[in-house]
């Protein structure tokens, strides 16, 4: 096998890109627009997701123990809770009623209710109960978990979040569904655009391809410059799209944060890796596949 020079292929693809200037620019712009729409959409959905998570307050159920439970009984309740399927073992937090009293008292220090707490402590009274804050894994199984918790001896009251969890889960599912649907549509469109651009480029060079075949060029020798050209289109489009996305996201994020305090906007630095990787993947993939598909017809042998 002889060596083919990479510089030949690269220079061919740059020349190609240049020669089809208008079409190349058009497809870079279209692909770029599609990437930005896709990226913004993904980031929007991601932010909605994060905000919904926050509303759900992180999959927690609070369980209160019976007033009369002894310390051993309470410890036993804790063990039983940790054994449940849907419960994250390391995330079951036990607050004793003494801790709660202290916390509450500290919280109201300096207010008019301060005296109420002082009186309680003086008389040795504690109206609070031991509680377990249970973090669970699966939102959709929360009803089962509540039932199981109810079965445990000594648990008196369960602070239910089932309704809210269900709603949040429902919204998340439909957002994700719409998201995936649009993503697929956008992807197909971008592939279509690239294929047509390169088809035109290939058509313009039909004669040259014929000559290449007569002098014994292999399929990949003919294909490679076009594939590189497609890759270049993808590369440039994703690079520029990334910069635009970055600027836009930061700008809009800043605006939203100023106007609302409950919204969480994920900082761009946390998602930039995904954005650039996603852009490159989609950009390069459509570039490569697009050129391969458009060439097929001219390479029957």
């Amino acid at each position: 096998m002889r060596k083919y020079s990479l510089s030949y292929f690269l220079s061919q693809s740059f020349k190609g890109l240049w020669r089809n200037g208008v079409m190349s620019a058009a497809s870079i712009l279209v692909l770029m627009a599609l990437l930005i729409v896709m990226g913004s959409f993904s980031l929007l959905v991601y932010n909605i997701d994060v905000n919904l998570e926050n509303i759900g307050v992180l999959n927690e159920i609070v369980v209160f123990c019976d007033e009369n439970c002894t310390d051993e009984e309470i410890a036993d309740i804790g063990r039983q809770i940790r054994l449940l399927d849907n419960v994250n073992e390391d995330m079951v937090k036990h607050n004793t009623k003494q801790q709660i009293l202290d916390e509450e008292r500290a919280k109201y220090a300096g207010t008019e209710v301060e005296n109420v707490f002082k009186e309680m402590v003086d008389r040795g009274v504690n109206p609070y109960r031991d509680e377990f804050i249970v973090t669970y894994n699966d939102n959709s199984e929360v009803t089962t978990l509540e039932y199981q918790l109810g079965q445990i001896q000594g648990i008196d009251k369960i602070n239910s979040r089932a309704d809210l969890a269900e709603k949040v889960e429902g919204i998340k599912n439909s957002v994700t569904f719409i998201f995936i649907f649009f993503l697929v549509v956008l992807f197909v469109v971008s592939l279509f655009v690239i294929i047509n651009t390169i088809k035109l480029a290939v058509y313009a060079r039909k004669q040259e391809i014929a000559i290449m075949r007569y002098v014994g060029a292999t399929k990949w020798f003919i294909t490679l410059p076009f594939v590189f050209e497609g890759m270049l289109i993808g590369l440039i489009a994703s690079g520029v799209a990334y910069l635009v996305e970055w600027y836009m996201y930061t700008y809009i994020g800043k605006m939203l944060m100023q106007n609302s305090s409950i919204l969480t906007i994920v900082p761009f630095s946390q998602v930039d890796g995904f954005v650039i990787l996603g852009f490159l993947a989609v950009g390069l993939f459509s570039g490569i596949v697009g050129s391969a598909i458009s060439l097929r017809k001219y390479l029957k042998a």
Partner: protein
Amino acid sequence: MIEFKNVCKKYPNGTLALDDVSLTINDGEFVFIVGESGAGKSTMLKTLFREEKISSGSLTVDGYDLVKIKNRQIPHYRRKLGIVFQDFRLFPDKTVFENVAFAMRVIGEPTRSIKRRVPTILSIVGLQDKYNDFPRELSGGEQQRVALARALANNPSIIIADEPTGNVDPKMSLDIMNLLLKIQKRGKTVLVVTHEKNFVDYFQQRVITIKNGKIVDDKVGGMFDA
């Protein structure tokens, strides 16, 4: 060696362009293929460089079975051939040097040997002064000589020329024909499709006459009487 055995070629639209053609061309022969327009001459050449598949019969070239050949072998097979067309088919935006060098790049020839070989070939066809010219700056005869140089670049064993003088003015045509003969003298098989009665009669080579896809005459030292 080129061997047609009972070759038929039927195009998808039903035209029977080659009708039971059988013929053998030995290594180093010079052959004119003549016949009126639409007789099937170009089709015959196209089956040779496997632009078209034959419909029945068998066709072998230098040990390649062109019926059984696999698609990925075709480029390698074509490197054994040098093909020249009436319309030159040069790259308009490449120089003379680059047009010839291109055929060598395609087969992965290192730049060093390209730089050594291209000048040699260009002097064989008499274009040693035109390296940096573009095709549009050359006459028809000169362009065809570039095409011939390109066909020779990879030292093929067979040269196939389809009406190589069709777009070349009469004075230059003799040059091209002489060049083809010179190439044959250097040991290559040369097949030339032509309309030029004068040359055919003058050169006294093997002449194959085709009519309606059939071989109607095949004589050494033959005359043009289509």
